[in-house]
């Protein structure tokens, strides 16, 4: 059950160990998978303890339906992958749920907070933080400044307090300690006082994730965390994502790398043409006909939803 056979094929010679050695402390994985065991394998399946619930969320661009999600629940404390072919509407759904775009209709809530018409920064303040497909490192800020920016409820972020350093210095020191701890964990401490613009692409991914954690989130939404990352670093990122669940966070992520999805996620949601076409554990999804059709186009020209249950012709 546990994703242990990711295989050494994707790894460079530099990091051959991670494939075989499953880190010992993954109690959260068993808990999450046990909680999801009884959930029906169908689109929109209800979960025992959802942290994020969306209903009838849709968004069109002109005549194109970008997103049309009837129902979606994300189980608390799990790692849920959102997959689908290009243009399936994954990133748009991310933007809608996190408040970066407005849907045409629909309701959704996070941990009891209704989020319709709630601006993005407030959604983030409730404890749902997101990253971006194209990494957004703040290039002219140093790495440590990037990190400290992530902390919420900073007294010195009001200008009238900002003028008087003694009002915020103590808090700043606490924030800096938290930031340094995270930097060490993400192995970026040697870049601490460099401009973020000097980091490599992979380091920027790490920085963005670490910075997101500075907000002490309960739900972390990662938009293609593995895009443009070399195989050795992928393994590191994998471990970091699993670690988030270990620390009680829920993770929802968009990804194309199926090995990674299989290795990391407890639950997979598949989108195509804006809709959710399948849900299930990674093992269920691999054999799902609708998913294969969506990716490979066996039903080209036909609607994906007409003959969901049949096999390929």
């Amino acid at each position: 059950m546990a994703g242990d056979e990711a295989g050494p094929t994707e790894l460079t010679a530099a990091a051959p160990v991670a494939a075989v050695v499953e880190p010992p402390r993954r109690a959260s994985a068993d808990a999450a998978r046990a909680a999801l065991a009884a959930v029906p394998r169908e689109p929109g399946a209800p979960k025992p303890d959802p942290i994020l619930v969306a209903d009838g969320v849709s968004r069109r661009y002109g005549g194109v339906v970008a997103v049309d999600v009837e129902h979606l629940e994300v189980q608390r404390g799990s790692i849920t992958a959102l997959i689908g072919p290009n243009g399936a509407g994954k990133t748009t759904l991310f933007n809608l749920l996190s408040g970066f775009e407005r849907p045409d209709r629909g309701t959704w809530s996070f941990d009891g907070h209704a989020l319709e018409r709630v601006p993005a920064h407030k959604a983030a303040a409730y404890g749902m933080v997101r990253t971006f497909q194209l990494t957004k490192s703040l290039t002219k800020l140093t790495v440590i400044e990037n990190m400290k920016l992530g902390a919420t409820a900073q007294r010195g972020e009001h200008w009238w307090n900002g003028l008087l350093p003694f009002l915020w210095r103590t808090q700043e020191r606490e924030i800096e300690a938290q930031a340094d701890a995270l930097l060490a964990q993400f192995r970026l401490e040697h870049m601490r006082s460099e401009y973020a613009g000097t980091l490599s692409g992979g380091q920027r991914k790490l920085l963005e994730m670490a910075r997101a954690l500075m907000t002490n989130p309960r739900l972390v939404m990662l938009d293609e965390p593995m895009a443009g990352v070399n195989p050795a670093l992928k393994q590191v990122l994998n471990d970091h994502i699993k670690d988030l669940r270990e620390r009680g966070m829920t993770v929802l992520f968009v990804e194309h790398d199926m090995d990674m999805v299989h290795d990391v996620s407890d639950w997979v949601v598949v989108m195509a043409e804006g809709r959710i076409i399948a849900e299930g554990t990674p093992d269920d999804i691999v054999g799902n006909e609708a998913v294969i059709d969506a990716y490979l186009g066996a039903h080209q020209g036909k609607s994906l939803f007409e003959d969901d249950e049949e096999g390929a012709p």
Partner: protein
Amino acid sequence: MNWDGIINSTLRGFFGIDAVYFALAAIGLNLQFGYTGLLNFGQAAFLACGAYGVGMATFYFGVSMWWGIAFGLGFSVLLGLLMGVPTLRLRADYLAMVTISIAEVVRLFVRSQTFRNVFGGADGISDFSAAYRRLSPFHPSRGYGLGPFQYDDATRRILLSLLWLGLAVLVGVAAARSRRVRERGPQVQRIVGVGATIVTVLVMLWVLDRLRYSGYTMWTLTIGWILVAVLAVFLWLLMRSPFGRVLKAIREDEDAVRSLGKSVYSYKMQALIMGGVMAMLGGVVRALDRGSVQPDNYGRDVTFYIMTALVLGGLATVTGSIVGPMLFWAVLVFTDSFLNEVVGSDGVWEVGGITLIENVTQIGQIRFALVGLALMLLMILRPQGLFGNRKEMALDGR
């Protein structure tokens, strides 16, 4: 050629009232554009807010001139909201378009015949700074110098010497603690610190005794430079705080900041208004000094000169936003007096049979061409401005 006269007027331009109100507006623009990335092309309208505030206090409202500063504050906050509310949720270019047009609307509005009784039409408002001038501790008909050796009494000599010496030490300390010098170790720091102090003292000895001002000008300069210093400290403190960190982050990528739970809109609004209020103070200083305000002194050209002066000094540096305007005016005044010397009384300048200047009126145009050339060279040789951070500049577009 009268080099002494050219140098003296250049120095007066360097420290003059034009440099003061440009510096105040540039500090505000630096907060808006340099740090927050808000492309505000309507800074002249914020200057006009302050100028018309003090003008209208006596002319229209019939109250003491001091209310004018409160009016200016109100006007500039209102103007900031007017510019910001429709545009700050959109991309940066919309703000640029709206600010430039609102600034023009403001100018045309105040100069319109219809509201002549409120704003004084195209002639503007004049003769309102009597109360301000009465406060001056300087005698109006006497000339005042800045150098300690122009005075006979010991107190003034000592006080002025201490003032300038203190300033020289401050320059030395600032130079020694600047990032590039700090990186090279304490030995270099010590040499640069002492060196900069000595050089500053020598420059002051040469400069200060050349500067003489009338009592009124001296009064405005005192007020103005104190105001510049206060705002500079304000900006410096602000940009070292978590608030400043958020502003700089917004300049880099506002979506990232939004995703971290900060209300980008509110921060941008605060920056726009704060920078506008700073420029407003510049308008107050300028209007009080002249005792008059004309709408056409607050046109687009002023906005772009302020932008130029700021870029010249270096974006996102406090020193740059003060020294930039000073140098801008020094260069303008220098080219002007230099060309005037060159053409002489007949108003013609010929070089090798080619007539470069036919009459005196062309000097104004030629000097802006020369200033433009100087700026182009600066941008090619030093794109980050005089005080800008090259390392930061190099990260652009990465």
